[in-house]
């Protein structure tokens, strides 16, 4: 094979028709750029979800009040007040491997200090909460098990709440009025950012669940219980034990549905990442369609080019080009268009996704693998869509081709 000179011939032919080459490559540039940007956005979302799931804490089992699979009335998680404080204590006492339990109640309400007020979320938790969620304080100290036992009027606040009410002032030691009950702020949490659902996790007040139930929210049931297990290998066993313990405590006969829902962090992570994976695939597929259209553009132009250059092909054959030389030439032209388009498209895609992450604050993640795949795919598009026109050119009869007007 005489590939090297044929390569030159192909490149020269492309250079002779600069405008057309650029426009043809543009189809691929847009296609590859779109694939890179879309997959980057999808992967970025997935990575963010994963990071946020991890921020739920390590080896965590979540028990929600009520059941999502109840045969009767279907309430949301935490909807029906079936979890009692005693349930949490039983888990703490009886399930092996448990290293932390946090009883959780949640409410939203207006909080105020001085002449500022702010609508925020109140989380009632045990002192284990900060360990379970691996959420250290940026400043100050957390509330203690003693505070929980005595239902003391203390709380820690998230960064957003702190900024909204105190601005640049140090909130520690200040009094925050929640439903007209004065709470002393003992600490400020480190910022955590947005949750997978897009909620600002730093817009929060965390206080002992006893204080929350007695002084702010009222009620005697928990929304959920967060359980942390020391050894990840023990999670499945612990999950089973929690289920049977709670069924026994709630007097649920065999064959009836649970009145609570147990989820491990891993299950939640799988659901959430599955969603973003589907999104990545969908975005990628839509972008892939434009790559396909770009490929068809290449085929179209190559077919036009073969017809237009029939005489040239005839001359080349007359001076000794074999069918294979002609095939190679046109294939190289197509692959050059598509792979150069692919490289430019990759650059554009990276550019587009960084613009999105800078100005729209969308998380994007471009992996080396997606770049490599996009490049190989664009080259493959060239081979695939270039082959038919190239074969058509190679199959021309030199006499007919020379006579072509």
């Amino acid at each position: 094979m005489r590939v090297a000179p044929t390569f030159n011939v192909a490149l020269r032919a492309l250079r002779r028709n600069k405008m057309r080459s650029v426009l043809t490559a543009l189809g691929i540039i847009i296609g590859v750029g779109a694939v890179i940007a879309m997959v980057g956005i999808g992967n970025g979302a997935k990575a963010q979800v994963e990071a946020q799931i991890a921020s739920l804490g390590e080896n965590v089992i979540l028990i929600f009040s009520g059941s999502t699979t109840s045969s009767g009335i279907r309430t949301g998680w935490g909807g029906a007040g079936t979890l009692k404080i005693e349930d949490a204590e039983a888990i703490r006492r009886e399930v092996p491997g448990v290293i932390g339990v946090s009883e959780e109640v949640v409410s939203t309400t207006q909080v105020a200090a001085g002449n500022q007020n702010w609508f925020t979320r109140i989380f009632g938790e045990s002192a284990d909460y900060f360990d379970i969620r691996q959420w250290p304080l940026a400043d100050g100290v957390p509330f203690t098990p003693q505070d929980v036992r005595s239902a003391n009027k203390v709380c820690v606040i998230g960064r957003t709440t702190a900024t909204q009410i105190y601005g640049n002032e140090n909130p520690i030691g200040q009094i925050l009025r929640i439903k007209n009950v004065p709470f002393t702020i003992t600490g400020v949490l480190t910022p955590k950012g947005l949750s997978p659902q897009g909620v600002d996790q730093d817009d929060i007040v965390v206080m002992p669940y006893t204080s929350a139930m007695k002084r702010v929210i009222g009620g005697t049931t928990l929304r959920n219980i967060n359980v942390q297990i020391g050894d990840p290998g023990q999670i499945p066993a612990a999950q089973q034990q929690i289920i049977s313990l709670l069924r026994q405590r709630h007097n649920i006969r065999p064959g009836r549905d649970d009145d609570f829902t147990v989820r491990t962090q891993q299950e939640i992570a799988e659901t959430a990442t599955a969603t973003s994976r589907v999104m990545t695939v969908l975005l990628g597929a839509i972008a892939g369609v434009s790559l396909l259209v770009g490929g068809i553009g290449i085929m179209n132009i190559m077919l036009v080019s073969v017809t237009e250059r029939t005489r040239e092909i005839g001359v080349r054959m007359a001076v000794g080009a074999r069918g294979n030389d002609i095939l190679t030439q046109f294939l190289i032209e197509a692959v050059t268009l598509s792979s150069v388009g692919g490289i430019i498209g990759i650059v554009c895609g990276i550019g587009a996704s960084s613009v999105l992450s800078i100005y729209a604050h969308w998380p994007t993640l471009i992996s080396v693998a997606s770049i490599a795949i996009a490049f190989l795919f664009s080259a493959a598009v060239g081979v695939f869509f270039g082959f038919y026109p190239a074969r058509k050119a190679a199959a021309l009869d030199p006499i007919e081709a020379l006579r072509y007007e």
Partner: protein
Amino acid sequence: MNNGALVRLIDVHKVYHTGEMEVPAVRGVSLEIKRGEFVALMGASGSGKSTLMNILGCLDRPSSGSYFLNDADVSGLDRDRLADIRNRKIGFVFQNFNLLPRTSARENAELPLVYSTQRLSHAQLREKADGVLASVGLTGRGDHYPSQLSGGQQQRVAIARALINEPEILLADEPTGNLDSRTSVEIMAIFQQLNERGITIIMVTHEQDIAAYARRNINMRDGLILDDHVVSKRTNAATQIQNLSVNPTLVEPI
């Protein structure tokens, strides 16, 4: 087998199939052309001269009969083998020049070397191309594009392209068909010069006065050779050009 013939056709037939019809274009031609000859192949359109030309140029294969080129039977070779023969042994000159557009004269002349088995460096290619361009009187025109050249100059580039691989035969199909009479004489002068240097030339033409530059004329009609004779009163293109420069009115009107 070797009797000095460069080209030997033995009872060559060529039949075209157009639908149900069988159209015989060449109906049994036997012919020998020796090295160093300058043959004009003549005939009206439909006489089969173009078909015979295509067979001689290894662009086409005979339906039956044999074609020995350099004592090698080439009548049964496949497309790729024929392409190699064309590359090594045959140089083509066409009526409409058939240069690649937007491609310099030098690159046009280099074209057969792209498909040759010999590997030349860029500098060697350039040297060779400039050499053949000079031999057809186009010194210093290597960087010109076909659109910047006159018809006669374009045909010279085509001749340079045909010569670059040092072929056994130069095949010319109506080489002066698109040229005025003055330029035609110039091209014939080049042909005669090349022939003096020992290059075998086969030229298809329907013009009697162009055929008169050749050494031997073959007339065809209805797919058969009607007449094959040596040209007795040969026109010398070089002398003609000299006369022209003295008295420009001699050949002028067309």
